[in-house]
């Protein structure tokens, strides 16, 4: 029982990331009909928003403290971040430590800009071209974004710590009344999961309960008819692209403390997220989320020591294996609608 619970918990954080990226991918595919291979790069850009904000907040100036000396006897140079000098040491320190959650505010405008530029500048011209062309051009874009980040931030992963309040782990089992010491779980992963749940709920509510969302859903079902009713559906779809970019970006921001961001993290997630989308069913939002969590949890179950002892290497290939089986037995994925990209 404990072991099962532990594996489910372990799968949740990766599953959340898969679900968020897959949700964005499906939003783009469902609205614009474009297969976006650059979506992983958006995730990566989000993570680097967190890094950038952290760097900006830690910008400091150097003063010479004549009272103290370093080990050579010279006056000691003291580095003080600007934030600390403006807001006082305590608040300033707190701002720097909470840079990752603060990056959410920073990432939203950045991702909106990136999303709008990408859609208006590039994707717009690819609506009518074959899917292969869309894959190729967005693949090229992903390489370009990746290399730009590599140029500015280098090739090494950049550790981005979570706020100290969430830094450690806690005994999750004890709080459920199980034996203490069985299920130790880092706080930040729980935060990530809750965050993902909130974002997913927000996107679904937005689509379900607003007029804008209603129009978008109508457009996803039948684009032409909505156009005939005098609604500029393209404009709304462009906004949906920006929203998908925000979702990917925020997924990246919050993922930064779990895995230090590096320039190719997007590609690593992209491949798996595509598999997730396909398993969930192209164009089905609920399917993407469900498949994301399902595959994340499945992956963590497959990496249990007992399972690996039985079927060596299964933890490495389980997701792909599931994808192959699903694609061959249920062509439209778990929750795909009939008639959407079935062949």
């Amino acid at each position, binding site marked *: 029982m404990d072991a099962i619970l532990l594996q489910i918990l372990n799968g949740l954080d990766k599953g959340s990331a898969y679900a968020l990226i897959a949700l964005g991918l499906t939003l783009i595919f469902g609205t614009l009909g474009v*297969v976006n291979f650059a979506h992983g790069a958006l995730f990566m850009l989000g993570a680097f928003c967190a890094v950038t904000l952290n760097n900006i907040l830690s910008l400091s100036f150097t003063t010479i403290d004549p009272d103290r000396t370093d080990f050579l006897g010279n006056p000691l140079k003291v580095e003080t971040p600007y934030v600390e000098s403006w807001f006082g040491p305590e608040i300033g320190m707190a701002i720097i430590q909470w840079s990752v959650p603060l990056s959410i505010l920073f990432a939203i405008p950045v991702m909106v800009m990136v999303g709008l530029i990408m859609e208006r500048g*590039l994707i717009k*011209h690819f609506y009518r071209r*074959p*899917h*292969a*062309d869309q*894959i*190729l*051009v967005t*693949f*090229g*874009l992903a*390489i*370009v974004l*990746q*290399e*730009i980040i*590599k*140029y500015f931030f280098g090739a090494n992963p950049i550790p981005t710590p979570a706020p100290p309040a969430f830094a450690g782990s806690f005994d999750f089992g004890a709080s459920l009344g199980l034996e203490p010491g069985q299920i130790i779980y880092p706080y930040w992963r729980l935060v990530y999961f809750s965050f993902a749940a909130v974002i997913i709920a927000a996107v679904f509510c937005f689509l379900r309960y607003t007029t804008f969302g209603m129009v978008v859903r109508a457009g996803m079902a039948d684009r032409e008819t909505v156009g005939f009713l005098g609604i500029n559906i393209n404009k709304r779809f462009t906004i949906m692209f920006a929203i998908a970019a925000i979702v990917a970006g925020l997924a990246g921001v919050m993922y930064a403390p779990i895995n230090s961001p590096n320039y190719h993290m997007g*590609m690593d997630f992209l*491949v798996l997220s*595509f*598999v997730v989308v*396909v398993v969930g069913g*192209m164009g089905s939002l609920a399917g993407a989320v469900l498949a994301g969590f399902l595959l994340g949890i499945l992956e963590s179950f497959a990496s249990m020591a007992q399972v690996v002892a039985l079927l*060596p*290497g299964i933890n*490495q*290939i389980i997701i*792909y*294996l599931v*994808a*192959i089986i699903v*694609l*061959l037995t249920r*062509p439209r994925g778990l929750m795909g609608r009939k008639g959407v*990209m079935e*062949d």
Partner: protein
Amino acid sequence: MLGLNKKDTTLLFIVVFMTLFAPFILNPFPVGSQLAQFNAGYPDLMQRFVIFGIFAIGFNILFGLTGYLSFGHAAFLGVGSYAGVWMMKLLSMNVIPAILMSMVVAGLFSVLVGYICLRRSGIYFSILTLAFAQMSFSLAYSVLTPITNGETGLQLGLNDPRILGVSQVEGSIPPANLFGIAMRDSYELTLGGWAFTFNAGYYLCAVVMIVAFYAAIRIFRSPFGLMLKAVKSNQQRMNYTGLNSKPYTFAAFVISGVYAGLAGGLMVAMDPLAGAERMQWTASGEVVLMTILGGAGTLFGPVLGAGFIKYFENIFSKINENVLHQWFAALPDSIENVLIAVVYPFIGKGWHLTLGIMFMLVVIFLPGGIMEGIQRLVNLFKRRRTTDDERAGGSSALANNAKAAE
């Protein structure tokens, strides 16, 4: 000649000429001159040109003709490499059994993968091939370590049996050879300031590539090739007319898998080791880049694309800041620094950025790749000449357009 029409014969001869005289063509600058770093005529790189050329030709038979975009072709190359190294470990250091075995094993593997993946088309096909390639990559790293030697990569050992050949010569592993001609043997020719290297291994690869290229031409021009092109243009209509297109795409998939295996085998023949990173999906992405950049669906495009990317990867990436400073030394300091600041992100280690941008531009503006660009230039030139002719009362532009449309 050789069952080809005149145009194809000319193309074949151009390829033969270029591959056989590559040591001259790729070394246009004298040794020791400023521009010598742009010389690509060293054996290692020339071998890579032709090997990746073969890989891309094979990929093009699948993608260029049928339009099925595989994102997992590197798996066949990797599997072929492992098979090749095992033949060298077990049988002999002669490269022939190694190369043949790579082709056979890669072919069998592609039969398995193709049988499953070709049940779906479009993006699903891409995802399925990607999934298979990633699976092989992960397995080669983890469970199959006894066969693949995991992260270290499969290498030759001193105590390998090599039942058909000598196992070791004076305490070291004998070199890979073709009936006694060692693959690493080279002949240096110095003419004035120029130095040219003729490498046995390169010429083996070159001959193999010419044969592979010839086979590709024959496939393109055959009824079978026509059928594949029909699959690309409209598979549904083809099925409605009562033709089953599956066997054709399947055959194309296996053929391109065998080509990839051949490339893997040649890699092993040149340098007897194999690693799992050859199967990673980025490697599959690279061959996609080559084919598209050169021109998918054209005969010569993929070879051109492969050469282009490998040249940039090896030559362009070596240009560092110091070299740039040397180039722009004549300019005033301020302009020099600005120029270098602008150029630097795109060269040296940043060459991937240039590649990505170029690739995007090609996909957006030149869907036919470099070959289409050349074609357009030729047409432009021809049209200009025709209008001149028209003024002189010559041939009509219509006939010329018809010729261009061919």
